C-alpha cells in the first residue's frame, strides 16, 4: 500500500537545517553566517574580536550575497531574459554567479585576472562557466590594472549586446544593497548592537559600503575600517586603489580609516589564524585581522571583521609561503 504524502511534506525548514534548494541556504537575517571570536590571535589587545565566517555560505564566500542580489536585480528589471551572464571577477563572485546561473537555467562567462589561483578556475569550469583569463595590462589604452573589467565590458557590448547581461559588480548598487540588507543587519543582531568597529577589505567595496552604511545608520559612532593591499600585491579579491580604478559604487563617506597591509603581514597572520584558532581562512582575512592590530581599538571593544572566504582555494599560494615547512626534516 502506498501512502499519499501531503503537499509540502518535508519541505524547507531552517530550524531543522532541512532545505529544498541550495538557494535556501543563502544568508540573511534569519540564517546569518556565523561570527566566531578570536581568543588567541591578538589576545594581548584584549579585544572582543569576531570574524564573520562568510565561507560558511553555500558557494563558499561573501560573494554569495552579492551574486544573488545581482541576478535578482537583473531579473526584476527584465534585463536577464534569455541572456547569459558576464562578470569580471577574481573568482568568488564568479563562482557564486556560475552556481546561481545554472540554477536559473543560464550560464556565466567570466573574465578573471591573471593571478587567480588554478583552484578557482577549475571550480568555475566545473560549474559550467566559460573562463577568460585576462592579463591585468591587457588594454594599455584603458586602465592599466583592470584588464578583466575592460574585457567583460567589451564582451557585453559584442553581438549587439544581445547575448550577455552584465552583472557589473563594480558599478551595480545591487551589490551594496546585498550587504545593506543582509550583512549589516546580521552583524547588528549577532552583536546585540554592541559592535563598535567594522573591518573589511577593499575589493568592489560593496561589503564595506553596504554593511558599513547600515551599521552607521544604526549607530553613527561605529568606526568603519577599510583594508587595502599594497600595489603589486598577491591578495586575491583585494584591490589597491593606487593601481586599480575606484569602483563606481564606492562611497568614501562611509569609511573612517584605511589601513594598508603588506602581503608579508597578511600571510603571516593568516598562518597564525590557521594554527592558533583552527580557522582555515583565506589570505584577505589575514590582512583584515592584521589591520585590526593597527587601528587603535580599546580593550573590550567589540569588533566584527569580515572573513571573506576560506583558504582551501589558495593552497597553491600557501605552498609558496610554506617552503619546506611541515615536511620531514631528515
Amino acid at each position, binding site marked *: 500500500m502506498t501512502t499519499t504524502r501531503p503537499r509540502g511534506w518535508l519541505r524547507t525548514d531552517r530550524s531543522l537545517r532541512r532545505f529544498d534548494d541550495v538557494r535556501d541556504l543563502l544568508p540573511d537575517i534569519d540564517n546569518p553566517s556565523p561570527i566566531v571570536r578570536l581568543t588567541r590571535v591578538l589576545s594581548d589587545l584584549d579585544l572582543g574580536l569576531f570574524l564573520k565566517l562568510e565561507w560558511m555560505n553555500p558557494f563558499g564566500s561573501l560573494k554569495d550575497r552579492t551574486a544573488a542580489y545581482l541576478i535578482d536585480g537583473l531579473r526584476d528589471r527584465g534585463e536577464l531574459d534569455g541572456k547569459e551572464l558576464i562578470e569580471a571577477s577574481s573568482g568568488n563572485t564568479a563562482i557564486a554567479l556560475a552556481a546561481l546561473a545554472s540554477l536559473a537555467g543560464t550560464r556565466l562567462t567570466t573574465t578573471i585576472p591573471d593571478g587567480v589561483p588554478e583552484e578557482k578556475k577549475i571550480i568555475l569550469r566545473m560549474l559550467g562557466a566559460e573562463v*577568460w583569463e*585576462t592579463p591585468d*595590462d*591587457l*588594454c*594599455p*589604452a*584603458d586602465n592599466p590594472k583592470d*584588464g578583466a573589467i*575592460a*574585457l567583460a*565590458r*567589451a*564582451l557585453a*557590448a*559584442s553581438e549587439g549586446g544581445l547575448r550577455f547581461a552584465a552583472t557589473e559588480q563594480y558599478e551595480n548598487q545591487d551589490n551594496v544593497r546585498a550587504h545593506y540588507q543582509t550583512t549589516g543587519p546580521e552583524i547588528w543582531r549577532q552583536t546585540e548592537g554592541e559592535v563598535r568597529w567594522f573591518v573589511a577589505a577593499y575589493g568592489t567595496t560593496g561589503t564595506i559600503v553596504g554593511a558599513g552604511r547600515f551599521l552607521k545608520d544604526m549607530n553613527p559612532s561605529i568606526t568603519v575600517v577599510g583594508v587595502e593591499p599594497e600595489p603589486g600585491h598577491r591578495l586575491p579579491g583585494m584591490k589597491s586603489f593606487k593601481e586599480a580604478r575606484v569602483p563606481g559604487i564606492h562611497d568614501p563617506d562611509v569609511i573612517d580609516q584605511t589601513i594598508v597591509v603588506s602581503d608579508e603581514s597578511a600571510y603571516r597572520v593568516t598562518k597564525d589564524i590557521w594554527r592558533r584558532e583552527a580557522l582555515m581562512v583565506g589570505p584577505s582575512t589575514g590582512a583584515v585581522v592584521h589591520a585590526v592590530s593597527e587601528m587603535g581599538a580599546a580593550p573590550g571593544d567589540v569588533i566584527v571583521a569580515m572573513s571573506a572566504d576560506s583558504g582551501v582555494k589558495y593552497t597553491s599560494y600557501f605552498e609558496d609561503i610554506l617552503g619546506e615547512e611541515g615536511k620531514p626534516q631528515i
Partner: protein
Amino acid sequence: MSTDKLIDRHDVSDNPMEDLDCSGLLCPLPVYKAAIVLGRLHHGDLLRLITTDPGALEDVPAMARQRGDRLVSVSVADGHQTFILEKGSLQ
C-alpha cells in the same frame, strides 16, 4: 582614404600567414584574441589582424611590444585597421 605604414623592412613575404577578423569587436577583445592566436603560431609566422575599434591602433602595437612580437605593418582604410604581426621568439 587609405594609409599604409611599413613598420619593419624585414622581408616576411614568404612566411606562413594566419588571418583573424575582429571587425565589430571592442578593445581589448581584438588584442586578447590576437594574443591567443599568436601563442599558437611558430616563430616567424605572420598574423593578419583586422579591427574596427580605433583603440586597436594603440593597443595592438603595445601588445606586440609586451609579447616580443614584431609589428610589420599597419594600414587604415574604410574604418578598418589591418595589422601584420610576426610571431617573435620570446613566447
